[in-house]
């Protein structure tokens, strides 16, 4: 049985391919909104991000036995500082803090390559595996294939043949499972979708939206949005478009190619400059002709809270209905959002598809 490396990444900058080339399965750690946070509360003050706290609690509860090490990737203050708490209280022999750079220029690229090389070295040392260029390119080819398939499948959301929540579950699974199985399942899924007939919009009451925000890893929240009459046709999330928007370009230097890939992905709020995130959302919103943008933010998510007035004003300028909602990381709290979401739906009633 292949071992796994668990990684906590509030954005998506962790090089899955490095782990795969070391014969390890990259396993992205998500939160679980049904668990109690009693232990994490002993380590993390009450006004810190609920998502990062929840992941820590999962670690404290004990992760799957086949997970043999932890990587935490730089993104925001909460996740960065909680690394040391993981390190002290969740016992693993292998720990790596990946300093994914804030910027996306040449100097940052060089640094990121150095940090990836160090991670490669430490993985090799610890797990006794040799990570060759050949293995890296095998992994890259595999994840690139997966990205291509995901891109194709994602388009079915726009054709009314795949729910946004279904797609979310698919991509979430892609982050957690053996990539060979993922590839197989995606091929099967695509075959099934290809024989479905595109439907004209039968249900005119559904509102086409783009979903954005902090990390949204509970598929239930998407199901909840759909139950209120929203149709999620696109997104700019890491459990979504940011995962497959680009491919890893192959130039002969695999580590550099991986670093380049991550620094050329659509920008996120934890990076600099972050204003490009709005531009990217705008492009998607226009391409998919959405009626509005829903921005769901984890409680106490500072990077997004700082962006709110800019987002609000920028969407207003382009006449795109926009709603920003801070949410708890607990399922039974989702319904507290209903009044605001219903009101938003009303606003969208007058917006053409």
């Amino acid at each position: 049985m292949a071992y796994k490396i668990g990684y906590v990444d509030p954005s998506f900058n962790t090089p899955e391919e490095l782990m795969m080339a070391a014969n390890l399965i990259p396993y992205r750690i998500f939160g679980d909104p049904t668990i109690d946070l009693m232990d994490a509360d002993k380590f993390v003050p009450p006004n810190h991000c609920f998502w990062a706290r929840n992941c820590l609690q999962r670690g404290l509860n004990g992760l799957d036995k086949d997970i043999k090490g932890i990587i935490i990737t730089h993104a925001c203050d909460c996740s960065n500082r909680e690394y040391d708490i993981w390190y002290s209280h969740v016992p693993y022999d292998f720990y790596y803090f990946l300093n994914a750079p804030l910027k996306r220029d040449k100097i940052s690229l060089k640094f990121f390559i150095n940090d990836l090389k160090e991670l490669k070295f430490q993985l090799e040392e610890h797990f006794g595996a040799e990570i060759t260029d050949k293995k890296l390119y095998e992994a890259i080819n595999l994840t690139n294939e997966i990205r291509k398939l995901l891109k194709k499948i994602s388009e079915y959301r726009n054709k009314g043949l795949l729910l946004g929540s279904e797609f979310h579950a698919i991509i979430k699974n892609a982050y957690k499972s053996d990539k060979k199985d993922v590839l197989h399942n995606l091929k099967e899924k695509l075959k099934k979708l290809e024989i479905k007939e595109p439907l004209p919009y039968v249900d005119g009451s559904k509102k086409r939206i783009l979903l954005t925000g902090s990390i949204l890893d509970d598929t239930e929240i998407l199901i909840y949005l759909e139950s209120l009459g929203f149709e999620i046709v696109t997104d700019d999330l890491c459990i979504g478009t940011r995962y497959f928007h680009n491919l890893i370009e192959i130039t002969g230097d695999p580590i550099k190619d991986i670093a380049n890939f991550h620094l050329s992905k659509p920008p996120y709020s934890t990076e600099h400059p972050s204003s490009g995130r709005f531009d990217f959302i705008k492009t998607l919103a226009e391409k998919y002709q959405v009626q509005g943008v829903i921005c769901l933010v984890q409680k106490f998510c500072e990077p997004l809270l700082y962006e709110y007035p800019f987002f609000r004003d920028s969407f207003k300028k382009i006449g795109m209905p926009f709603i920003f909602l801070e949410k708890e990381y607990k399922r039974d709290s989702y319904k507290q959002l209903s009044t605001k979401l219903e009101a938003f739906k009303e606003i969208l009633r007058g917006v053409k598809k």
Partner: protein
Amino acid sequence: MGRHYLAIEQAYRDGTPTAWATSGTSVEMLYTFDVQPILPENAATISAAQKVSKKYIESAEDLGFSYDLCSYFKTNVGAMQNNAPIDLGGIKPPTFMVAADVICDTHVKWFQVQSQRYKVPLYIIDVPHVTSNTTNKQKEYYQSYVEEQMLELMDWISEITKKEYNEEKSREVITNSYELSEYWIKIFELRKTIPCPVSTKDTFGGLFPLFTMPGLKEPIRVFKKMYQETKERVDNGIGALENEQFRLLFEGIPFWYNLKFFGVLEQWGAIIVFEPYTYSFGKFLDPTMTKDYIINNPIKAMSKIMLSFWYIYDLETRVKEFKRVIKEWKIDGVILHNNLSCRPNSCGMYDLKQRLMEEEGIPSLVIEADMNDPRKMNEEQLKNKLESFMEILQKNKKQ
């Protein structure tokens, strides 16, 4: 402090370059180019001391900035929005801005917001995070990364200011900064004495030149005088508190709007003799940063400072350093300010408390408040907590 703000006003009058910088960023680099630094955090503390921070914070919240964001940031946004005068913490848009994630990511988000609002160029220095298991090898390439950015920043400033980098000037600036810090650390050394010659009133009040004027000559004279006075007190056995009973460590930023609160400690004969926050601005704390080293490698030294900043030490180093301070400064109890604004500082605080109590047997107390937002401080509750804490210390002493 007046001098610093006079210099700022003068720079605006003369039209010479000004720059906002976040604390922890290399202010020395700005002085190297004769750019007048302005530290919005410092200005925000003035708003708090003048009891107007609440108004400015609420004004920023009216613009849509959350109740939960850092109150320094909101004070700055609100003060600008209200055209606050300089003596109430008002500052103007600068020629350019420099921020770094050395202490917190808030700094980056804050300056992104303000550079967008006021259309001012911004340079961000990305400083890698050092954690409990960062190796020396990693620290080496972290250091090169910061250095390369510093070189880029030099060119960037050079282009804006139309001024060439001058190595001689940078040596002079870093040496001044070093000497300023040296006096600060020497004052801290004197605070090891029983009774402690200076209290928080002097350190929280005297700290600001370290933020705003490291690189200039005048503050060195002021600090030298402060040091000599402190030395005299030590030589004459004079303590800041008449009847010193308990020596405390206070972790975190104080409540700038209510500094007098610390006066309550006097009734128990307790005095704060060490604050990691004020100590950390004596920033040449990495033992490899000798005077020789910094003079010969000014840019390297500026980069190194950013990677070895006490305020954001990783948990293991933080615990280790706290233990050392407890011994050397003969600390009886530790008060940890869980500052609702400052997540990077408060993260790990519970572990710190636990380990100091378990491994050193030092009573430690976490209190919750905010450095600039008086709405988040419950004075009565704090007093009660402190009272119970002091009872524990008293019991400990009797045993």
